[in-house]
């Protein structure tokens, strides 16, 4: 015989089937809330990261690049591709009114890197003029990149000191960037000299689509920040009007497209979460009401033995709270077990920049989800608890007796 027992806990253990259903429901609720919130905030963070990484307000690319209709894919997602324009065009662009900071980049896609035949986007930048990539490369490496040095994105399984071979040229990994949740995670960065060497090697091996190319005379894109007093829109319009064979794009415009689809995803997720909520709350309400109705006589007995109205109601609330906490913890466990390991897959499936929040924030969101589960189940049982507190033990116990 025990000195003490917890009646709510014993009641839950006494009906394992009912308790399991209730715990499962609250777990489902917590999982959808936490999973949905993590995905939406991951998308937001990814987008912010992309905004921070784009660096230039205006991007000028050869006209053919835009006809491939893949430009957005290349800028926003990890699709690989390369295109070139004459260097002289770059001088024309630089000479336009309103053009402030200017830097050029050269692109190349590898066909083979290390073990896997997956193309990697190689981006060559000019360390002298660059204002987009250098600032965040400098966070990892302060010395300038030498010939054959590369900086790899976070998703590439190469580490500082490794050697990667592109088109027969051995490149030395000088730094590895932090995760950004954008296309830059799967890219390789290097200076213009090295990328020209790689392009030449790809031409020599007849593995480049542009076989007659002179790597020294071309660039892939020109990145521009407008001069003071000019807007990006003015610069874009001016270049598109006066410089042939190129197309100027406002990078922010591309992001706003992503922003729109993001708010779409956020609202769909919101609606889904709300639907699950309403459903779960209704079911919880029904199950609690049924389970308490079924045990009316037991609660009447408790009152006879000396439980006050408040104590009887507290017993119902405590049962609900225990269910909420158990289900909440299970839901958080399952939710994190799905979202955290599978975040690369989620990123791939969504096709949008995706960067999971940091550990502290995930812990905070999990705590909030647990609290929510507890509050929702307590609220769903509140009506039953109130009815139990109002119950007249004499009426219940008399039944059909006098």
């Amino acid at each position, binding site marked *: 015989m025990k000195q003490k027992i917890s009646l709510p806990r014993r009641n839950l253990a006494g009906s394992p089937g009912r308790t399991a259903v209730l715990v499962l429901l609250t777990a489902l609720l917590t999982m959808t809330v936490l999973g949905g919130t993590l995905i939406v905030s991951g998308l937001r963070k990814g987008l912010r990261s992309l905004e921070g990484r784009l660096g230039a307000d205006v991007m000028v690319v050869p006209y053919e690049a835009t006809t491939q209709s893949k430009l957005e894919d290349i800028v926003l997602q990890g699709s690989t591709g390369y295109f070139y324009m004459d260097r002289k065009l770059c001088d024309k662009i630089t000479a336009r009114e309103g053009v402030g900071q200017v830097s050029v980049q050269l692109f190349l896609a590898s066909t083979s890197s290390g073990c896997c035949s997956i193309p990697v986007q190689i981006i060559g930048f000019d360390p002298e003029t660059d204002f987009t990539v250098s600032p965040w490369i400098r966070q990892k490496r302060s010395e300038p990149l030498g010939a054959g040095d590369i900086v790899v994105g976070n*998703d590439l399984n190469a580490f500082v000191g490794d050697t990667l071979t592109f088109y027969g040229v051995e490149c030395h990994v000088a730094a590895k960037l932090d995760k950004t949740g954008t296309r830059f995670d799967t890219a390789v960065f290097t200076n213009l000299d090295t990328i020209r060497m790689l392009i030449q090697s790809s031409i020599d091996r007849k593995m480049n689509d542009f076989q007659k190319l002179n790597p020294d005379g071309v660039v892939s894109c020109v990145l521009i920040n407008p001069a003071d007093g000019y807007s990006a829109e003015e610069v874009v319009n001016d270049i598109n009007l006066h410089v042939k064979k190129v197309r100027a794009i406002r990078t922010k415009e591309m992001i706003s497209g992503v922003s729109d689809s993001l708010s779409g995803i956020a609202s769909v997720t919101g609606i889904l979460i709300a639907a699950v909520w309403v459903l779960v709350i209704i079911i919880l309400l029904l199950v609690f009401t049924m389970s308490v109705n079924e045990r009316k006589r037991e609660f009447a007995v408790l009152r006879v033995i000396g439980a006050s109205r408040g104590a009887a109601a507290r017993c119902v609330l405590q049962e609900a709270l225990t269910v909420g906490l158990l289900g909440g913890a299970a839901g958080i466990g399952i939710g994190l077990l799905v979202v955290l390991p599978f975040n690369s897959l989620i990123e791939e499936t969504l096709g949008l920049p995706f960067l999971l929040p940091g550990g502290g924030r995930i812990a905070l969101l999990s705590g909030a989800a647990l609290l929510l589960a507890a509050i929702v189940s307590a609220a769903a049982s509140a009506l039953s608890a109130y009815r139990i507190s109002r119950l007249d033990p004499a009426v219940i116990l008399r039944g059909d007796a006098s």
Partner: protein
Amino acid sequence: MKKILQIILLLMSAALCAGVKLVFHACAKPAGGMWMHCHDAENAVCGIAAGLAVLSLLMLLIKNGKIAGCIGILTAAGAAAAALVPGHIVKMCMMDTMRCHAVMKPAVIVFSVLIALLALCCAVLRFTEKKES
């Protein structure tokens, strides 16, 4: 309850063994190319999972609680090893966005963690069971 948990453990080990080959397998063999590193990881996980299935079957069949408990702990250790195979014990592909990283690795981790937890639960239950008189 004990029996049900052990049967679930057996089913999950079998599911990991079959799943890593059929559902959440590693990167496909490129046309005309060679198998990639991740294929070795896939085979290793499949082999370990087959071992786990055999161990959990043994645990289910063995009457002696102490021996069965030890097998449960061995199963948990094996599952932990399976979780470490992709990426840690066996090298995988170049990019985190590739199938072996995005699909196989997390699925193997999730399955292995669940199997390890379940195996520990079963081990505790078997260790603490009373001798049938």
